[in-house]
C-alpha cells in the first residue's frame, strides 16, 4: 500500500530480468522508453514555455506518471477510445499525437490540435481516437461510459456482430469523490459496457492527500466493487508491469464486455499545476518516489537485459529532445487563429454570426498522409 504516511513506491515487480516478466518484444520496449522520454522532455519544455509566458491558463505536468499513460495505451488497440482529464499531454503523446500539434495548442495557435480553442487541459485527436482532455474533475467518466457504449452499439446493434472494443477512461484520485463517477460506474455495470476506469492514484487531489479527501483510501477499488466492477491494484511506476497487468484487464473487459476499475499507484513529481508550491508534502516523500522514476526503471532493466546500452539510451533521449525542439519551433511559427475563428466551430450549421465548422490541421494532415 502506498500512502502519504507510508510513501514507499509499491514495488511489486522488478528484480527479475525483463525477459522473464514480459511478453513484450525489444521493439515494444524501445518504443515505450521512447514515448516516456518524449513525454518527459515535452513536459520539461512545457514548464519553460509556461514560465516564458508562451503558454497561458492552467497547465498540469505529467512528469512521474509517464508509465501509466504509456503502459495502459500500449495494452489496448488503436481503435479503442481513450479519454482523460486535464493532465492530458502524456496521454495525447502516448496515443500518437505529434508533439507539434500539442505544443501549438498550448501556444494558442491555429496549428494546435483544437485550433488553439482548447488549451492545455483540452487536447483532442480524432485520427488517434483520443476524445479529450476534459477540464472538470470527473466529467470525463460518464463520457467514457458513453464512448464504450457507442463502440458496443456500433459493433452489435448496427453491425450485428459482437463487441470488439474496450475504452480507457483515465481519472485522478481526486475524481473518486465526484458523483458523476459513481453514476458512470453504475450505468457501465448495469448495461455491461466495456470501459476501464483507470485511476491514476498519485495520492493528491490538488493539495489534498487522498486520506484527507477520500473514504476507504487504502482500498479504493472497493468503490468499483460496490457497483459490480472487478478491481485491480497495479504498480504504476513500472511501464512493463503496467502493460502486462493492463493487457489482462483489457482483454477480459473486451471479451466479457464488462467494466473494470484499476487503482494505478503513481506519483506526480511536480506540483498540481504550474502555480503549486507543494507545501502539503515533504521533500523526503518526493525524493523517495523519485528513486522509482519510471524512465530510470525501464532504462536500467533494458541495459541489464542487453536491450540497450548507455550510448543507445543517450541517442534515443537526444532524438526526443530534437523532436520537442522542432515541435516548439513549429508551434512558434504557426499563426495565431484569425479573429474570424471566434465564430467557427460553435455550431455545425451556419446561421447568424456562426460560420460553421472545419477540421483542424491535425485531422487534415492525417487524411492527406493516409
Amino acid at each position, binding site marked *: 500500500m502506498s500512502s502519504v504516511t507510508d510513501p514507499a513506491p509499491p514495488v511489486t515487480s522488478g528484480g527479475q530480468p525483463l525477459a522473464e516478466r514480459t511478453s513484450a518484444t525489444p521493439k515494444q520496449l524501445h518504443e515505450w522508453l521512447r514515448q516516456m522520454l518524449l513525454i518527459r522532455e515535452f513536459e520539461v519544455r512545457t514548464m519553460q514555455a509556461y514560465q516564458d509566458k508562451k503558454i497561458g491558463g492552467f497547465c498540469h505536468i505529467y512528469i512521474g506518471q509517464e508509465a501509466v499513460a504509456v503502459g495502459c495505451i500500449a495494452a489496448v488497440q488503436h481503435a479503442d*477510445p481513450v*479519454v482523460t482529464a486535464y493532465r492530458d499531454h502524456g496521454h495525447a503523446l502516448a496515443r500518437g499525437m505529434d508533439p507539434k500539434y500539442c505544443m501549438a495548442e498550448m501556444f494558442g495557435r491555429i496549428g*494546435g*490540435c*483544437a*485550433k*488553439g*480553442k*482548447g488549451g492545455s487541459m*483540452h487536447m*483532442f*485527436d*480524432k485520427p488517434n481516437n483520443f*476524445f*479529450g*482532455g*476534459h477540464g*472538470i474533475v470527473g*466529467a470525463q*467518466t*460518464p*463520457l*467514457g*461510459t*458513453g*464512448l*464504450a*457504449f*457507442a*463502440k458496443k*452499439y*456500433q459493433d*452489435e*446493434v*448496427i453491425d450485428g456482430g459482437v463487441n470488439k472494443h474496450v475504452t480507457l477512461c483515465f481519472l485522478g484520485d481526486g475524481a473518486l469523490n465526484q*458523483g*458523476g463517477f*459513481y*453514476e*458512470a460506474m*453504475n*450505468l457501465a455495470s*448495469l*448495461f455491461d459496457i466495456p470501459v476501464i476506469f483507470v485511476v491514476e492514484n498519485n495520492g493528491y487531489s490538488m493539495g489534498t492527500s487522498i486520506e484527507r479527501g477520500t473514504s476507504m483510501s487504502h482500498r479504493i477499488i472497493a468503490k468499483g466493487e460496490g457497483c459490480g466492477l472487478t478491481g485491480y491494484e497495479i504498480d504504476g511506476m513500472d511501464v512493463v508491469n503496467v502493460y502486462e497487468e493492463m493487457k489482462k484487464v483489457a482483454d477480459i473487459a473486451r471479451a466479457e464486455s464488462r467494466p473494470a476499475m484499476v487503482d494505478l499507484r503513481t506519483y506526480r513529481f511536480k506540483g498540481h499545476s504550474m502555480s503549486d508550491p507543494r507545501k502539503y508534502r515533504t521533500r523526503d516523500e518526493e525524493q523517495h518516489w523519485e528513486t522509482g522514476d519510471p524512465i530510470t526503471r525501464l532504462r536500467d532493466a533494458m541495459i541489464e537485459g542487453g536491450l540497450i546500452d548507455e550510448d543507445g539510451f543517450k541517442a534515443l533521449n537526444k532524438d526526443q529532445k530534437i523532436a520537442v525542439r522542432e515541435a516548439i519551433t513549429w508551434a512558434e511559427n504557426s499563426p495565431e487563429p484569425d479573429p474570424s475563428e471566434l465564430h*467557427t*466551430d*460553435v*455550431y*455545425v*450549421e451556419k*446561421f*447568424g454570426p456562426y460560420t460553421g*465548422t*472545419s*477540421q*483542424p490541421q*491535425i*485531422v487534415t494532415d492525417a487524411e492527406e498522409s493516409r
Partner: protein
Amino acid sequence: MSERIIEFRDALREAMTQEMHRDPRVFLLGEEVAQYDGAYKVSRGMLEEFGPRRVIDTPISESGFAGMAIGAAMLGLRPIVEFMSWSFSLVAADPILNNAPKMLYMSGGQFGCPIVIRGNDGAGGQLGSTHSWCVEGMFSNVPGLKMAIPAFPDDAKGMLATAIRDDDPVFFLESERLLAMKGHVPEGDHYVPFGQAVVRRPGTDVTLVSFGRPVHFCLDAAEELAKEGISCEVIDGRTIRPLDIDTIVQSVRKTNGCVVVDQSWSFGSPGSEVAAQVHAHCFDDLDNHVMRVHSADVPSPYAANLEQEFLPNARRIAEAVRSALYVA
C-alpha cells in the same frame, strides 16, 4: 381527404419512431421510457417496436446517462435523451452545459455532439417549485446549443424530427400541459426547419411574440382583446436558438407595438433578449417600449390560484397589450 387528428404526445412519438426506422444510430434513453411506456406515455410501444438495445430504461441518474449519451454522440451515434422533466436536468448541468454545447468548439471542430435532449418544461401542474422549472432563461444563455419549443402537435412532430436530424445539440422543451392536445399532424416525413417563426394569428395593432405553451395564452388574450376592438398579431417563435428575429421585426414594423410573452423569469431571459433586439431593430417604429409578460419573479407556487397568477396568463397579457396601446 380527411385530416388526421392525433395527440401532441403521439406526434412526438411519431417523429422518434420515423427517425429510428430511418437511421440505426438513433436511440432513446431515459427514466421509464421502455417498460413503463414513458412517464407521460410519449414512448408508448417503442420498446416493443425497437427492442431494449434502442429504447433504454435508465436508473434515476441524469448526470450519468446524459453524460453517457454525450460520449456516444461524440462517436457519431444520435441519442435522444428523455428527461422526465427539465427540472431534473439541473443535476446533469455539467454534461449538458459544459460538454454537449462546447465539444465542437473545444475540439476545434473534431467532435460534434448530435444529441437531442427532450422533456417537460414549465409550471402549470401544481408540482411546486422544484418540479416546475422553465429552463429557457438559464439554458438559452449558452452558445452551441439549439433550443426548440413546439406549441402545436404538427410542430411537435416536425420540429422533433428536425432536431433528431440536426448535427448540433438540441434542447427540446415540451409542456406536460400540452401533451394531450389534439391536432392535425401530417403522416410520413414532416420536418419543420429551425429558425422560422410563424404567425399564428394575423393582426394590425400590436405584435405578441411567444414560445411554447404561452403561445396559447397569447391566442386566448387576442381573442378577448378582439372583443374590445384590439387586433393582435400572434407570433410563435418556435425556436429560441436560432431566433427568427426577422419575422418579429417585420410584424412590429407593421403594428408599431410589441409585447413579448415568456414563461421563464424576466431577469436575463429570452423575453429580455427579444425585447432588446426589437428595440435595436425597430427603435423608430415603436409607439411604446416593448412590454414583457413573464412568470412572476418568485419560485413557482403550489396553490392552484397562485400558480395561475404566477404564469404569464391571458389576463396579464391583455393588461400589457392595453398598456402598450395606451388604452386605460
